[in-house]
Each structure stands twice: as structure tokens, then as C-alpha cells.
């Protein structure tokens, strides 16, 4: 995949950096795991291995493989491959940012209202649909979901002030 991006010749963060970053992040998780395992004990108690025994060794293996992965990246010759072009990264962020706002909104506004806002916003802003069309889809989908989950399949979903006002 990186090859095709390479040919396009755009600028962006390097694949090497991304590889090392991912390995470092996984190693960080492993270190947290090791710390947590040590806290509950990694040795043997009278009734067998303690709770931290298994996660401790698992995290050690993670650290080891992260070290190998990083070493392999560093040892390989620099090929100038990029992770993704900045423009592409912007597109990724343009879906990730609304998504984060959306999930933050869910506990307060309920999933139906939040979904209506997300769909309407995304269609109008990213898809450049007219506000009327966007709002129609944005309202229609949550209403359909409401009947599907709450009414037909009896699965409750998070609700907010609007649903309370309507009596659910």
C-alpha cells in the first residue's frame, strides 16, 4: 500500500517514524502492564501462581518483540516511504474528529439525538448535500433505529432529555 502512495509523491510523515511510534506505544502499554502485574504479585502463593504471573510474562514478550520490531526498522535502509500524505491524513481526521465529538455527546444527549446530529453534519459538511436532504436522512435513520431496537427487538439504547420529554 505504501508503494502506491510513494509513487504519488506527496509529502507526509515517514513510515519509519510511524513504525517506531507504534512499537513505542505498544511497549508503553506493556510497561504499564508490567507495573500493574508487579503490584498484584507475579510469584507463587500457596494456591499457585498469583494474579500477576501470566500478564507479567505476556508483557515481557511484548517488550521483547517491540525491541525486535524497532531494531528491524532501524536496521533497514531508509527508503523514504511515507505513512500517508497530509491531505489523506486530513481526510482521516475529518471523520475521526466528528466521531470523537459524537461519542462524547452520546452519554448526555442520548444516542438518537447524537446520531441525528452526526449524520446531518457529516452529510452537509463532508458530502456537501443540501441541509434539507442531510436533515431528512439524519432524522430518518435514528427514528428507524429507534423502532428497530427499542420496539421490535426490545434492546434499550442510551436516551437523553429529548426521549424523557417524549415519555420514554
Amino acid at each position, binding site marked *: 500500500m505504501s508503494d502506491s502512495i510513494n509513487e504519488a509523491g506527496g509529502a507526509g510523515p515517514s513510515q519509519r517514524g*510511524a*513504525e517506531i511510534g*507504534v*512499537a513505542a506505544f*505498544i511497549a508503553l*502499554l506493556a510497561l504499564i*502492564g508490567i507495573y*500493574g*502485574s508487579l503490584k*498484584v504479585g507475579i510469584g*507463587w502463593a500457596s494456591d*499457585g501462581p*498469583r*494474579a*500477576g504471573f*501470566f*500478564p507479567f510474562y*505476556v*508483557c515481557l*514478550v*511484548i517488550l521483547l*518483540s517491540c525491541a*525486535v*520490531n524497532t531494531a*528491524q526498522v532501524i536496521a533497514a535502509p531508509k527508503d523514504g516511504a511515507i*505513512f*500517508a500524505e497530509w491531505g*489523506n*491524513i486530513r*481526510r*482521516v481526521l*475529518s*471523520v*475521526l474528529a*466528528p*466521531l*470523537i465529538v459524537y*461519542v462524547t455527546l*452520546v*452519554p448526555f444527549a442520548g*444516542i438518537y439525538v447524537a*446520531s441525528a446530529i*452526526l*449524520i446531518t453534519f*457529516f*452529510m452537509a459538511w*463532508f*458530502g*456537501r*448535500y443540501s441541509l434539507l436532504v442531510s436533515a431528512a*436522512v439524519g432524522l430518518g*435513520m*435514528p427514528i428507524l*433505529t429507534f423502532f428497530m*431496537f427499542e420496539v421490535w*427487538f*426490545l*434492546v*434499550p439504547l*442510551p436516551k437523553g432529555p429529548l426521549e424523557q420529554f417524549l415519555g420514554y
Partner: protein
Amino acid sequence: MFEDIGNLFHGFAVVAQPFNLLLMVVGIVLGVIVGVLPGLGGANGIAILLPLTFSMSPTSAIIMLSCIYWGALFGGAITSILFNIPGEPWSVATTFDGYPMAQKGKAGEALTAAFTSSFVGALFAVIVITLVAPLVASFALEFGPPEIFSVYFLAFCSFVGLSKEPPFKTIASMMLGFALGTVGLDQMTGQLRLTFGVESMLNGFDFLIAVIGLFGIGEILLTMEEGLSFRGKSAKLNMKVVLQTWKELPRYWSLSLRSCLIGCWMGISPAGATPASFMSYGIAKRISKRGHLFGTGEIEGVVAPETAAHAAGTSALLPMISLGVPGSPTAAVLLGGLLIWGLQPGPLLFVEQKDFVWGLIASMYMGNLVGLVIVLTCVPLFASILRIPFSVIAPIILVFCAIGAYTVHNSTFDVFMMVAFGVGGYFMKKTNYPMAPMVLAIVLGDKAEESFRQSLLASQGGFSAFWSSGLVTTIMTLGLISLFWPLIQNGWTRLRGGSAPRPAQ
């Protein structure tokens, strides 16, 4: 044996109930939609639709969910052939010859060939399951902790050995899965671990959240980055083309049989459908007389990967129902479903839940048949789904992912975790860390750890329990062999002289 056949017919009777037949059709249609849409695949599609089954009986639920799976397997072929976009990783190999065929105006033939060979592959795998699964299960009933651990060990080692990704990346992602699986309550000592006092972490990480995040959100982010625009060939399938293609297909019986065998073998070992389809395509290209024409629209190039992918996708359920070890992320999600419905996966299922197991097996036969009819008749309808612009589809998929993540434990914290897994999945995909081993490790972590610790206890802290009987020793050795398989293969070719070629992918 005869008892099994009786059970199977009983299973057919269960499946043939009108309600279950309806669920089957609904499942297939949902499955094809899931398979066609970008960002939704078998595993996360089923994970998202899992809450719909909470109020059903386990048998009806598994019929619907497994039919979603068959539908997704069929759906992948539609997008590969008409749009040159593999809806699922295992249909990448189908695009090589399927799309050129569609460009030549032979979309109908390609689709018919793909669907029919999918059906043949699945049917072969189901027959294998019918015959082998009960035997494996009755054999596995005798397993103690060391044997159980050795089976897990074998499963995870073959991931490392057979995966195309760098081995240490596979290990890192797998072990990360195990580590995530240990968060929360330790089932053996009743102690809390790795929660760091955060209340939302008490329940640990549910793998369903991981599946929805990694495969759903991650895939949407990737699709956004690549900026796909869907321009497809139109699909017209009439009976004449179908019958004509069917007349032609029996000529490729040896190709089909070979692809079935490859698929079943790869499906049972947790390597999965994707490598099976590539392997089958590669071998077909080498053996076929028209091999040099592969890639320009050869029907054999569609038959080979589709047969193998379906055979693998179906046979991945064999270890799931007989041993409780899923052969693919999708099988893992189905296994998670069993737990939610209150069933204990493993060999005891065949003894205690006859209705369920044989209902599932019978639904594999029926579901694939129903699926074949539905996809053959409704291709244009499904293809039109892909013409809906991504800016409409994307937010709707995100909403469904969020609903799916929420309903697992009725927790909004899980929805946050889903996004975190989604970002993680995006980076893992971009840096070639495989995600399937991570998902399977989260699912099996608890059980693998339990059997590991029990075995250690039995041998007073040493590893001797894993080499204590012939059976355990054999399975553990097989595990080690598959762990080091690339090295062994390299060494072997070097021993036989000459420079070592790259290990076969």
C-alpha cells in the same frame, strides 16, 4: 455415526420451522449488505447485529448470525467482481480475474461462477464438519488442562508461522491481546488486576468492542484515507447466463476439489480464508493449462479463490464448535455469542446442546443453499447499495458501530473504547500488525491462562505437564513446528542445495 445422521435430520426439522427460515433469509440479506459495504465485514457485522439476538432462543440466534456470515462471504464477491473493490480481505484474489471478466462484459458469468463455487466450497466444508466435528468433540471430552492449553498453543503458534506479516509483529499483537484479556477480575484468585482503580475497567476489555473498533472504525478510517470512489460495472444476471455457466463449471471439478481441500485445511488451522484464497489462486495459476492467461479474466481464476475462501470460512467453525477454539475472528464473535446466550463452548456442546449444535450444522447446509438463490436473484439490488455515496454511508455505519458497542454491556465507556480500538486498528493496519491474532487472544486469554496455570500447578511450577503424555507432547511439538515453520522451510530448501527461495506466502 448413524446417531449423528438422525441428529442432523432433527436439526433440519428445527431449521425448517417458519420463524427460523425467516431469520435465515433476513440473516443472509443483512449479511450480503454487510459484506458489500466498506467498513463492515463478517466479524464486526455480526458483532454489531449480536444485540438483535438477545431476546431469541440460542438456536434461532445462531441460525441468524451464521447466515449473516454466509451472506458476508457471498457479498465480498459482488464488490470484487463489479467494482474491483474487495469488500472482504478474502475476496482480494477474486478481483484478479473477476473484474477483468466484468470489464469484458462477462460479469454475469463471473458472478455465477463465484457464487456457485462459494456454494461448493461451503458445502464441502459443511460435510467435513458433519463427519469430523462430533469425532473431534468426543475425543476432546477427555482433555485435561495441559491438553487444552496445548490446543491453544498450537492455534496461536500456527498464526505466527503461517501469517504473511512479520512474525514479531504477529507476536506483539497477539500478546497485546492476551494482556488486554487479563485486565479486570482474575478468575482463579478473585483478585483485581491492571485496573489501576478505574471503575470502568473492572469488567476488562470485551473482545466484541475490540472487533467493532479494529475492523469497523479502523476500516472506515482507512477507506477515508484512500478516498474511494465507487464506479462499478452494471450487473445483469439472467437465467440463461446462469445455466450456461453451470454447464461449463463441472469441467473444473479437479480445481474445485483442490481448492476445497486447501480451504478446509487453512480454515481449520487459524490461518483463515484470506491466505487460503491466495494460495488456491496461486496453485491454480501454476497448474492450469491457461495459467499464463490468469489475470486477464479467466473463469478458473474466479473459481479457485472463491471456493477456497468459502471452504476456509466455513471450516473455521469446526474447531469453534468442537473444541471452543475459533478459527477466525468471525468464528470468535459467534463464540462470544454462545457465551452471551448462556452456552459453554467446547466439546460438551455436542453432549448437552444437541439441538443447538445440529441446528447450527443443518443451518449451514440450508443457509448456503438459500444464500445462493438470494444472491443469484438479487445481485443488481445489492450492487446498487455501493452506489450510495460514502458520505451518506460512513456516518450511518459509525452510528451502527456505536450502537453495537454500547449494547454489549450497556456502557457508554465501551463506545469510547471502540473509538480507541478504531484508531489503534488504523495504525496497526498501516504498519502491518495483524489484527486477527489480537482478537482471538482477547477471546481465549482467560481460558488459555486458566489451563496454563492449572497445568503449572499439576507439575508443581515446571513445564513437565506439557510433555507428560503422548497426546500433549504431540500437540505441543506440532505447535513448535508451526511456530518455526518459516525457519524450518528455509533450512530445508537450503539443505537440499542451492539458494533458498523466499518461503511460499
